[in-house]
């Protein structure tokens, strides 16, 4: 088995950056999740999404469980919101040529953190 992370497998930052921007666009447009970002400054939002996608794919960022819990505290995030985010992510990855098995790996990785994010 190769030790390559998904981040490396799909071409590093130059490819992942496209995933980040597409994900960012879809999130902002989403009427379910979008409102969470109403008052968030653009650069913070982009920073957050860059780190989120990078850490999800095994790139050069990682959020600890404590950080994740802290970021999402008191936001009233429901399971429905979380499911919507997963759906957005699934679609984004699939649109960017991720193999179904790899999409599954990424989705499992965020599913494992559901409890930290959902209130």
């Amino acid at each position, binding site marked *: 088995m190769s030790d390559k992370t998904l981040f490396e497998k799909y071409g590093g930052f130059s490819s992942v950056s496209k995933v980040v*921007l597409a994900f960012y666009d879809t999130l902002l447009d989403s009427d379910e999740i979008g409102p969470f970002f*109403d008052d968030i400054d*653009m650069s913070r939002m*982009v920073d957050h999404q860059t780190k989120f996608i990078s850490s999800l794919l095994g790139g050069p960022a990682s959020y600890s469980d404590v950080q994740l819990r802290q970021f999402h505290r008191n936001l009233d995030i429901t399971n429905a919101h979380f499911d919507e985010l997963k759906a957005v992510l699934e679609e984004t990855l699939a649109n960017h040529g991720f193999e179904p098995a790899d999409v599954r790996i990424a989705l499992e990785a965020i599913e494992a953190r559901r409890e930290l994010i959902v209130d």
Partner: protein
Amino acid sequence: MSIEAINEQLLRAIGVGVALLGRKTLQFHFHNDTFEEWFGNPNGPATLQDIFTDFDVEELNKSLNETGRYTTEVKFKKKRRTMVIALDFTATEDREPEIAVLVCQNITRIRELESMIDSYSMMVERNTREIKREKEQVEKLLLNLMPRSVYEEYKTFGVVTPQLYEPVSVLMLDFVGFSETVTTLDPSVTVTELNDIYSSFDRIGEQFGCERIKTIGDAYITVAGLPDPTPDHARATANAAIRFVRYLERRNASHPHQWQCRIGLGTGSVVGSVVGIQKYVYDIFGPAVNHATMLQSFSDPMQISVQDEMARALSEQFELENIGEKSISGMPDQPVWRLLDNRKGISAAG
């Protein structure tokens, strides 16, 4: 369709916001569809300030008067996305009434990309710093295990070729009654004190060009003439040995626990190499090591025993005392010498 009509259609449909303003009044005379999509319709006699509140008109006029141009950026939210638009004003010349052309470019994506690059480069830079720190720690650890030149060879080629060094001098030091010390003293105290002493030995040895090879419990082995050959190898170890004893004497005078050592100085050849694959360690083998080990056992506490061959090299500079003939490592009996600290002799005489 006339050329004018085509031009106007183009101007309306283009993805860049365009507007014409009265140079003095800053009232809108014309705007295209893109402009309206971003900033709304400047109805009636709307001015620049009506559309862009907080606009620095003074700065605009000053710049237009001086250079004929002015650029700035505006931000606004469209739905929840922060849009960033670059505004570029140009004053027209030789025309009445004077007008200013406003061209608006959507640079939202550029700003988003810049934020992403910032974010990513910060992550990468932090990781690079961490990797560098880890690398330095690994390097430090490896330099504790092997001489620098050996480490460089290991780093470059991935292997270390065993090498014969000849001649070298080996200093072997052992503590008297160490087993009892270990059982009577608190283990952490023993380790702290040993660490303290070995660190001092390292520093002393370094001053005289000795390379510490290893410690095995209470045994400390350092060598001169390796990895770089030196004609002074015997003197280097002799000088270090005398200072080791002096150091311990001074330390004992002010510490509750006494450390007594025996030292042996041997000379000859050794092979130096990295041993082991997973748990590798740099080690030396050979007659010089065996000699030093044997000679150390001949020493009384705080005394230094020296091999005959070495004693000859040292006799000019050091004071030596014959302590009889002994067999070393299965070789025929040969004289063994005790190395004296001539500074003590001088101070006693003085």
